[in-house]
């Protein structure tokens, strides 16, 4: 299934846990520093350089080069989303984010914020940076480049970006929590196998 960004609340509420999707349309690439600066600007009552309402946030710090024709994304796999756990619930509600692409999953407060506001978490395979770059047709722009290439706010155009797995849905379900539950059950056997 192909999702076209920007997304409506109905689009994301209809997605099922474990479902595979691809994305067309704009992605906002931002990680640690983008979260910190965007929320700080909002607290100060300032406008952001871009409007992310109903948009897709991609947790990523890309390798981008620039030549006469402009910016080119070389490698752009997902980064560890858990680093943004503390800031994400506010980020989702303040900026109206409808989907977050990342890897490794996010904690319960973010899962709850996603249920409340209508947002999903789409897992992309960590490290698959070349395939990710192939799903980015062009760079639309970049803001806050003073924070460095990996931390800047990049706006790119996705074309058949994926495959992505719906790993947290908009109804409070997390594939990571399911796996964690299984792991807790498996631990006894794992300990026995290691001679404990």
């Amino acid at each position, binding site marked *: 299934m192909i999702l076209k960004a920007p997304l409506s609340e109905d689009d994301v509420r209809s997605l099922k846990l474990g479902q595979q999707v691809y994305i067309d349309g704009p992605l906002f690439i931002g990680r640690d520093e983008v979260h910190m600066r965007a929320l700080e600007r909002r607290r100060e009552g300032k406008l952001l350089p871009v409007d992310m309402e109903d948009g897709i946030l991609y947790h990523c710090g890309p390798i981008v080069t620039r030549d006469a024709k402009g910016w080119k994304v070389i490698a752009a796999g997902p980064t*560890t989303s858990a680093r943004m756990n503390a800031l994400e619930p506010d980020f989702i509600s303040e900026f109206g984010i409808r989907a977050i692409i990342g890897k490794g999953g996010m904690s319960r407060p973010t899962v709850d914020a996603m249920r409340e506001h209508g947002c999903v978490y789409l897992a992309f*395979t960590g490290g698959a*940076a070349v395939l990710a770059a192939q799903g980015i047709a062009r760079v639309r722009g970049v803001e806050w480049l003073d924070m*460095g290439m990996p931390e800047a706010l990049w706006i790119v155009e996705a074309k058949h970006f994926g495959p992505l*797995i719906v790993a947290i849905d908009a109804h409070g379900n997390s594939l*990571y929590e399911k796996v964690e539950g299984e792991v807790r059950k498996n*631990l006894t056997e794992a300990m026995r196998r*290691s*001679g404990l």
Partner: protein
Amino acid sequence: MAVHMAGDLIEEVVVQMLREAVTSLPQDVVDALRRAEEGETSEVARSQLRTILENIDAAGRLAVPMCQDTGVHVFYVTGPVDAGVERSIRSGVARATEEIPLRPNAVHPLTRENPGTNVAVGLPHVVHYPTDDEFLELTVLPKGAGSENMTALAMLTPADGIDGIKRFVLDTVVKAGGRPCPPTIVGVGIGGTSDLAVSMAKESLLRPLDVPNIDPALDAMEKQLTEALNLTGIGPMGLGGRTTVLGVRISTAYCHTASLPVAVNLQCWAARRATARIYPDGRVRFGRSPFDP
């Protein structure tokens, strides 16, 4: 008498090693990932490994970094080491950052200022082992943050013993979950001082997956822990499955009679490493892990 290697040759070799390391994986790692893909039964787990293998192919074909996190760079150097060697490594890393390109990852820890070159105070990190050899041998381990951030150190007591060590390794991998980009390679350093335990854990990652531990007792422990960790069900990317780790590598050193330090350093599936041996006549031999003496 120390042999002085030409600095520009070392710099060029460093650029080549880094290019090889970040655009292709050593064969032992690719083989292990292929076996993992064949062994998975769930579609989600298989799809993660399939994407990883396709990505490795694409990176090789296009000669671009397989992962955008090209890491910070740890170098292990043996041979006639002098101050010029480290200078050449630093200029090689700066050049590689521009030419390959690598992502400029090195930032000031507090101001987060990024010089854009991957060269700054403390980075690249160069570990020197001076020897009487005439050749200089360099091994680079580009270390991404996803797995590095899961590093753990435990100062166990002698009474905790081998069971305590195993429990700590299991706990560390389970706590890390999907964050270090599993399937991972688990580096374990046992003994030494606290700092030595951590550096042994990392350096043990240089041993290829198809080379067994020379100590039979440690080899047995590596295999036992590998089997146990793969029963946890964390799976590729923490989305569930049979392959949580590709292997466990253990290094040991003697420690204080009152101590039992244990460190775990995880390596993501993109286990990038490259080695080069430079001879005084200018010949260079390239490989993917330290050569046998």
